[in-house]
């Protein structure tokens, strides 16, 4: 294993992280909030020091970077980034326990949005900014950012492909253009443009600038940290609708936007994943609206709340305009199912991804056919392209790993003695990077009451969910560390 190369990439990641802490520091200074500013200052220094040590250690990195290094590198980088990224919370004393602070930042980077803080309004603006910004950074991924700004090694190495594959969600990650650096730049440009658009739309609804920026970060990364205790409930219907639309937009595969830029509208319109994604959204909204009839005063209000919650849960954002824990069981069940489905591959959202659900449905249909006609040879197509058996096998393995992780986490978390709904929805909400679950961890609650063990399990769940399981499993596998 090429430890030095991994070290070098991680050193760069920490340097980027330290640079991104600066705006939060400036906000603290602007607010004359010197204790928090000092916490940020120390965090920056510590992060830079860690980066420097790693850089020293990895001075003479040899070449040779393969799938194994890529997975390990991505897994480790997210852990190190979180271990240092939570320092501002911890050092400022606003989240007094280190594990709680870690939970909060992992929840931020993985765009989960699950919080241990009972009342977010007591947090200072610098901390609130860093919390929301972590969504934005984690949404598209720091490594992809790194690929966009730094030519990682020479000009002609394909190894960056392993990094993109490990960090970007989806069963079949590819490049948009021949050069990795340009691919990463295009992704980030689309991301930044859409984020700016969100801010502008929010500002048009008379949201204060700070609120608009933080909300936009939470929406763009499909994270869901609010800066108000009641999440989005206190904002005007216009602002809530803007959020509904943009959450939905950020849950779409970004290569669709690239195709739009290339004016290939037909291929976007015919994209099967996009269609099933929108179908899920429209269908769920309609069913919940029907189920909630009489719950709110007007039909318009019902549709607005239903659409917001569906969009928020499905894209794994986790904002809320109402306490949906009070909704009837059928609506809650739909939301629970949507948690598992998740957004599209190649978006900032989490969950199992629509494309995998689509593939699994198609695999199931094929297996039924095969039972009836054992000799039949059948390929599975998505968007007219034949999916290789390797991708199908990976999808099955993903489902298996998914179920195993959910069950084992659920068992461990249940040790705390809360209700089954709380425990299961907490695991699903963390593992799928959503945020709020049901009952105790519902939109009105938080994760603060779990034990340290449960919090650690949930932290691992969030990381595994964001990185699509395998980079984390690889870290835990013995054969990864064995010398060959």
């Amino acid at each position, binding site marked *: 294993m090429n430890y030095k190369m991994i070290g070098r990439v991680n050193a760069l990641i920490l340097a980027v992280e330290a640079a991104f802490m600066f705006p939060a520091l400036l906000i603290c200074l602007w607010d004359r909030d010197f204790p928090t500013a000092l916490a940020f200052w120390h965090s920056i220094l510590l992060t830079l020091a860690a980066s420097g040590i790693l850089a020293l250690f990895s001075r003479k990195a040899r070449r040779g970077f*393969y*799938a194994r290094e890529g997975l390990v590198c991505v897994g480790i980088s997210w852990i190190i980034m979180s271990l240092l990224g939570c320092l501002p919370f911890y050092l400022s004393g606003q989240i007094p326990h280190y594990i709680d602070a870690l939970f909060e930042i992992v929840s931020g980077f993985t765009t989960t949005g699950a919080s241990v803080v009972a009342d977010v309004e007591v947090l200072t603006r610098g901390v609130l900014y860093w919390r929301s910004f972590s969504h934005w950074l984690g949404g598209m991924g720091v490594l992809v950012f790194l690929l966009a700004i730094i030519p990682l090694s020479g*000009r*002609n*190495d*394909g*190894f*960056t*492909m*392993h990094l993109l594959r490990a960090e970007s969600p989806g069963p079949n990650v*590819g*490049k948009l*253009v*021949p*050069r*990795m*650096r340009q691919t990463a730049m295009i992704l980030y440009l689309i991301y930044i443009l859409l984020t700016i658009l969100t801010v502008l739309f929010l500002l048009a609804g008379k949201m204060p600038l700070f609120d608009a920026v933080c909300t936009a970060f939470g929406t763009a990364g499909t994270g869901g940290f609010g800066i108000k205790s009641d999440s989005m409930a206190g904002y005007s219907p216009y602002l809530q609708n803007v959020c509904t639309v943009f959450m939905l937009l950020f849950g779409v595969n970004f290569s669709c936007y690239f195709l739009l830029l290339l004016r290939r509208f037909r291929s976007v319109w015919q994209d099967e994943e996009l269609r099933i994604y929108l179908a899920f959204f429209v269908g769920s909204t309609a069913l919940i609206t029907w189920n909630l009839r009489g719950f709110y005063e007007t039909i318009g209000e019902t549709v607005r709340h239903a659409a917001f919650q569906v969009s928020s849960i499905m894209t794994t954002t986790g904002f809320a305009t109402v306490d949906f824990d009070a909704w009837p069981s059928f609506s809650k069940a739909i939301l629970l199912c949507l948690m598992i489905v998740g957004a599209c591959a190649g978006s900032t959202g989490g969950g199992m991804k629509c494309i995998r659900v689509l593939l699994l449905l198609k695999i199931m249909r094929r297996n039924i056919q095969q039972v009836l006609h054992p000799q039949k040879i059948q390929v599975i197509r998505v968007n007219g392209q034949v999916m*290789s058996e390797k991708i199908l096998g990976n999808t099955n393995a993903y489902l298996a790993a998914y179920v195993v992780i959910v069950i084992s986490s659920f068992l461990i978390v249940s040790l705390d003695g809360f209700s089954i709904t709380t425990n299961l929805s907490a695991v699903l909400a963390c593992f799928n990077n959503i945020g709020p679950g049901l009952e105790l961890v519902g939109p009105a609650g938080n994760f603060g009451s779990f034990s340290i063990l449960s919090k650690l399990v949930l932290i691992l769940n969030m990381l595994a969910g964001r990185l699509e399981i395998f980079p984390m499993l690889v870290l835990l596998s013995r054969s990864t560390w064995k010398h060959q």
Partner: protein
Amino acid sequence: MKILIAGDGKVGATLTRQLSAEGYDITLIDSDQEVLERSMEQYDVMTVYGNCASMDVLKTADVGEAQLLIAVTSADEVNLLSCLTAHALNPRIHTIARIRNPEYTGQAYSMREAFALSLSINPDRQAAVEIERLIKYPGFLKRSSFAKGRVEIVELRVTEKSALCGLALSSFYKVLSCKVLVCAVLRDGRAIAPDGNFVLQPADKIFVTASADSLTTLLKNLNIITHKAKRVMLAGGGRVSYYLAQDLSRAGYSVQLIEQSEERCRQLASLLPDTCIVHGDASDQTLLDSEGLSDCDVFVSLTGLDELNMILSLCAQSSGVPHVITKIGRFTTSKILDSLPLGSVVSPRELSCSTIVRYVRAMQNKEGAALTIHSIAEGQAEAIEFLVDRNTRHCGEPLKVLNVRKNVLVCCIIRGIQTIIPDGDSFLKERDTVIIVATNEIVIRQLNDIFEE
């Protein structure tokens, strides 16, 4: 510049490595997903899965934005169809196709407009030409060719007995009576760009530029060609052998060809009336001996198996054949190859790749980039081929009044069909091709870099 490479085989992969390193955006097309996967992990390129001759696949690969299509799949017909289709989708695109079947080679050239071909490449033919040149002028340590093979830089060693020893470069023409230019001298491991007063010493390695014709004269006058090679033995009856036997027989050599398959032997016998075709296994030592291996002047191993070629060459070398040539198809030039006494090594793949790369560089030449770069003098100097264009300064001024940088030498000018070994009165003209030799400490990126200021 965007380039599509269709066919991720041996040549495709080599081209990908080289062109991607030179900063071109490469999209690879192949019908084998696994090969594509491997290439994508190795190089910073995009891949498209499918048949490169199909319109949909070419559209997916964004043929409309590409400036060049290089079709190097194993099937000639697919290559041609791919170029045709690409041209129909994007009339501005340049196309290069590899055509290996001898039956198509002629028509690929004469019908190049109908096929929409900018360039057709025949690696076997190129290898044969290269081997023929090696046979014609033995005695070089190394050689590099420029301007499509019309100018060569050869490396010679000055020995004490040689006429070169103690010779000042200004009197070169008087003594040797042919127009050549010594463009670099390697003395004690250091490269020197010599002037007229430079005197050669024993153990110098000199690098001589000459047109292909003067080279023969030079070698004759230096008594390097002691006796002309007459008997050539070829092991293996593939396409390269066919081309080579044809050319050599025409040039008056006596050629023996050993081939394993009887059917192919009959075919070759009908195609090559002047060649002695022997049916047998070339790896059989007794067969080689009975066919007179030790009397051969040149032995060329051209079977389809690299390993066999190496063994055969080693075997010929040990039987005392003076000149051995080995064809290597798969292995790229490696250190192990250099350490074996295989004689001259010829790789059809490398040859066609360098031709294609040269074409790509020429396409890009709007900014005056180099067409061909060869490193000479143990890597301490570079010989670079440029095209003189509108932006070149000092056109039409004689070289003696120009302020050319130290350790840079203009060593050849090709004007139309004329090859000029320049002296002080020579000048540059637009559309000339020039060859510059510069020692390593000087960075020459474009032609104008050779002038002092």
